[in-house]
């Protein structure tokens, strides 16, 4: 088992191979190496590595990737429930390599 992988079979990432032109941008921006390029198309290596940051979908100019992105932060989700809004991680700062 990978030691830094979160819950299985839960992420909302979807890749539409028909719209994919193989530009490789998704593989560049993904911080968890979810995509690999094979025969001129992007492929998902292990979907459970995805943290739904949304970088791939935002940088896919062909709209081949869909993901319901957001910050996986329990405090943010609780804030959202208590304030009746979308999950919002309103703690700023942290180190450069991590969020909140």
């Amino acid at each position, binding site marked *: *088992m990978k*030691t*830094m*992988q*979160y*819950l*299985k079979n*839960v*992420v*909302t990432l979807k890749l539409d191979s028909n719209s994919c032109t193989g530009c490789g*941008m998704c593989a*560049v*921006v*993904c*911080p*968890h*190496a979810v995509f690999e390029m094979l025969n001129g198309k992007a492929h998902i290596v292990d979907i459970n*590595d*995805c*943290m*739904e*940051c*949304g*970088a791939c979908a*935002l*940088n896919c*100019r062909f709209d081949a990737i869909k993901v*319901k*992105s*957001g*910050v*996986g*932060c*329990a*405090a*943010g*989700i*609780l804030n959202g429930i208590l304030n009746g809004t979308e*999950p*919002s*991680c309103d*703690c*700023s*700062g*942290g*180190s*450069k*390599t*991590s*969020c*909140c």
Partner: protein
Amino acid sequence: MGTQINVQSLRPVTVTAPTVSSKLELSDLLGALKVRFGINRNNYIVKPGLYKVGKPDSQSDVLVSANYKLSFDVLRKKLDTLNVWILVVDTKGVNVWCAAGKGNFGTENVVKSIKNSSLEYIVKHRNIILPQLSASGVAAHKVKEQTGFRAVFGPVQAKDIKSFIEAGYKATPEMRKISFPAIERAKLIPVDFMYAKYKLLLILCGFFIFSGLDKTGFLFAKMLETSLYPLINITGAYVAGIVAAPLFLPWIPFRAFALKGTFWGLVLTILLYFLFEVPYIDGISMGLINISIASFMTMNFTGSSTYTSLSGVKKEMKWAVPFQIGFITLGLILFIYSKLV
């Protein structure tokens, strides 16, 4: 837009960008330490705009950064002897990744910074280098459409930026991946520790007073005599959830963070039960409370971790929060019951 740029760029442009060093001063290091402990943390900013590192000219690379001083300092420190421009985007003093997630380090702000800094007159090339983690907020192709600048995503970490540039703007697969080593996890502990310090104090006070409950009413001596055990348990559970669980994050084989916390709450309970040799009802009541606290605190660490998804955390919380509330309620009832019999 094309002709307009050509005409205007014939005019001489005076560049008055401030120069920053690639060396950090003592005050930068002390400032960083204070931020880690949450002192004036939301006001640790760099003025947005264009900065010089070394002696950049019209051919030099342009690196884009957040205006959180820790991000900016890490970047300039790693530049070493390079001569580059740093374009600091107004991210409201938030680090790259968080700001990208919230939209402050977004396409619109990057476009605005490029225009406000008159970058098109300062450099002759049409390239900028963005931090890779800004990609969840910045669409590179839209920056190009709106400014003419081709946005290239650099590596995840500033320490690799020099090799990235020297390799002809190419990142190795390792440079593209976010890691979460023990040292990075340890750096987050102080901030998380301060996060609920007042709530912790309040709960400790509550347990201190409730320790004096007795079937005859309230006994001051009993409060002093029996409060040590619950106070050590609760403080321990808080530390277990905030320190032990993050440090040993990859080695406790549950995926859900709430379960990682539960594990440490249980370990603590067993240790303290045998150390203090208390009646088993005390052990059970404090165990329930410990597990609830440690589990909740570790669950909150999902916000600091670099690999948890929104869908996953929501799924985890659906069962974890009811179980945490149930455990702490049951633990409290048992605790009070044990005092009154």
